[in-house]
């Protein structure tokens, strides 16, 4: 006779196929959930496009007539900006602190009842969201930019598959970073502080405001190795515009994978520690 608990007993035998099917189902439901907000997606895409024009002109202004600055030529700048405006929504650099709200209200308790680990299930939902963002937010700026600016198209066969890998890793990494920011709500009542720090830091350190190679070389390298931020946006875009030779491109993606693995492991650790001290108000 086992005792009755609210928690579903963990499966005694691991079933990889079942796991993948569950994961896939959550990804699809994430896609469908975000695909309902069509007007919001349209409004967001228009804003991304307007900012694409603004940022593209600023970087072309920096490049001047001669045209090469910090290892980018004019066409590479254009690709960097327009792909970046789309990627911004795909990795979701700035999202609503949804998990933090669920922790504050206690709704998070229902997440803990599910037989899927919270980090895994939130990641699956976020991959679904990113999939919808590829259609609704990445395509518009990527299609509009080349109509008005000369863009750099990848010349090496390896670049596009490498970019796909790099962008996918960036989505996972950005999810992990946002999860950690949100998870501070388990300890703090008010996540505004961490949220503000993330919003400010991520934009400038990920390479959104200006390409990070504009900084001194040593500083750029230190940021890339010591912080996850450049791996969010700067790295996939550098891979796409072929700023470095193929070997360096692969190494950059390697650094990204390292950061994503480390941050995801940290997410699971933080979640385990949080569950031990979490007190959900009854009612």
């Amino acid at each position, binding site marked *: 006779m086992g005792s009755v608990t609210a928690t579903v007993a963990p499966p005694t035998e691991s079933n990889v196929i079942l796991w993948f099917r569950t994961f896939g189902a959550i990804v699809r439901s994430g896609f469908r959930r975000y695909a309902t907000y069509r007007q919001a997606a349209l*409004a967001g895409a228009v804003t991304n496009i307007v*900012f694409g024009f603004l940022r593209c002109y600023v970087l072309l*202004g*920096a490049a*001047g007539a001669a045209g090469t600055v910090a290892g980018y030529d004019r066409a590479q700048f254009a690709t960097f900006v327009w792909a970046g405006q789309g990627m911004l929504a795909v990795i979701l650099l700035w999202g609503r602190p949804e998990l933090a709200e669920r922790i504050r209200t206690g709704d998070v308790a229902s997440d803990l009842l599910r037989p899927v680990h919270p980090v895994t299930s939130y990641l699956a939902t976020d991959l679904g969201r990113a999939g919808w963002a590829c259609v609704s937010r990445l395509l518009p700026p990527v299609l509009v930019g080349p109509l008005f600016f000369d863009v750099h198209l990848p010349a090496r066969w390896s670049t596009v598959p490498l970019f796909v890998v790099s962008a996918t890793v960036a989505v996972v990494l950005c999810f992990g970073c946002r999860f950690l920011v949100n998870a501070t709500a388990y300890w703090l009542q008010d996540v505004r502080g961490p949220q503000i720090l993330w919003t400010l830091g991520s934009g400038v350190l990920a390479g959104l405001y*200006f390409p990070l190679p504009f900084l001194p070389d040593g500083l750029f390298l230190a940021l890339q190795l010591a912080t996850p931020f450049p791996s969010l946006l700067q790295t996939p875009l550098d891979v796409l515009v072929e700023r470095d030779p193929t070997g360096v491109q692969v190494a950059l993606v390697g650094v990204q994978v390292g950061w994503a693995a480390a941050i995801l492991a940290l997410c699971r650790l933080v979640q385990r520690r949080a569950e031990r001290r979490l007190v959900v108000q009854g009612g």
Partner: protein
Amino acid sequence: MADHRLRAYGALLGAQARSQAAYRASFAVDLVGNVGATVFDVVTVLVIFGVTRELGGFTLRETLVMVGLSACAFATADLLVGNVERLPAYVRTGLFDAVLLRPLGALPQLLLMDLPLRKVSRAVFGLAVLLVALARAGIEWSPGRVALAVAAPLAGVVFFGSLFVATATVSFYWTDSGELANSVTYGGKEFTTYPVTIFDGWFRAAFAYGMGFAFVSYQPALALLGRADPLGLPAWVGWVSPAVALVAAALAAAAWRVGVRHYRSTGS
């Protein structure tokens, strides 16, 4: 009657100030955090000038006058009326019905209901950037230029404020307008940070002269610096920004009045 109204508005503002300052640590975090966005706007310009000597034909000192005018005007307008961008939420939740029921003006109520005091720090920083930029730009001061240095940022505040109100009225017709307003308000801030000469073609025409953003920072900065316009407009154009701001305010007021009249509650 007018006295009563003023007292009612005063009560709204006082309640806001007390509630926002109640959580001191959060308020302090917000004060610091709000400076951040404008700090990074300035840092971005400095970093770009780290890799280039001039931007659109302007030096760093000259560009910083535009950055200062833009930052000061935007941050102050955002403090005073920026929260009108929450109108979509009020329309969606039906809170706007309650606002209309009270015997006070709808717009002042909305603005005073949550005047974001945490943004004070940002407005102060914007003003500081402008003062430093003006002091270091090597301007040959005359009484006229002193007057313009005072009038131009004020006109910029009115201009951006009008823009916040005008774009918010879209939510009377399209409840889920979401980020659309940002492309004009925050986009305008981005546009006015840089010399108009770096932009080109129809995009420049639309933003600079179609929507009037050239009069927030670029044209007044030319007049203050005593530079001829590379785009060929006459010198007096730098002095008309207050007039442009008044036109923008009139248009925004009209849009607001029409919008409120068209407002149909969502019923929620």
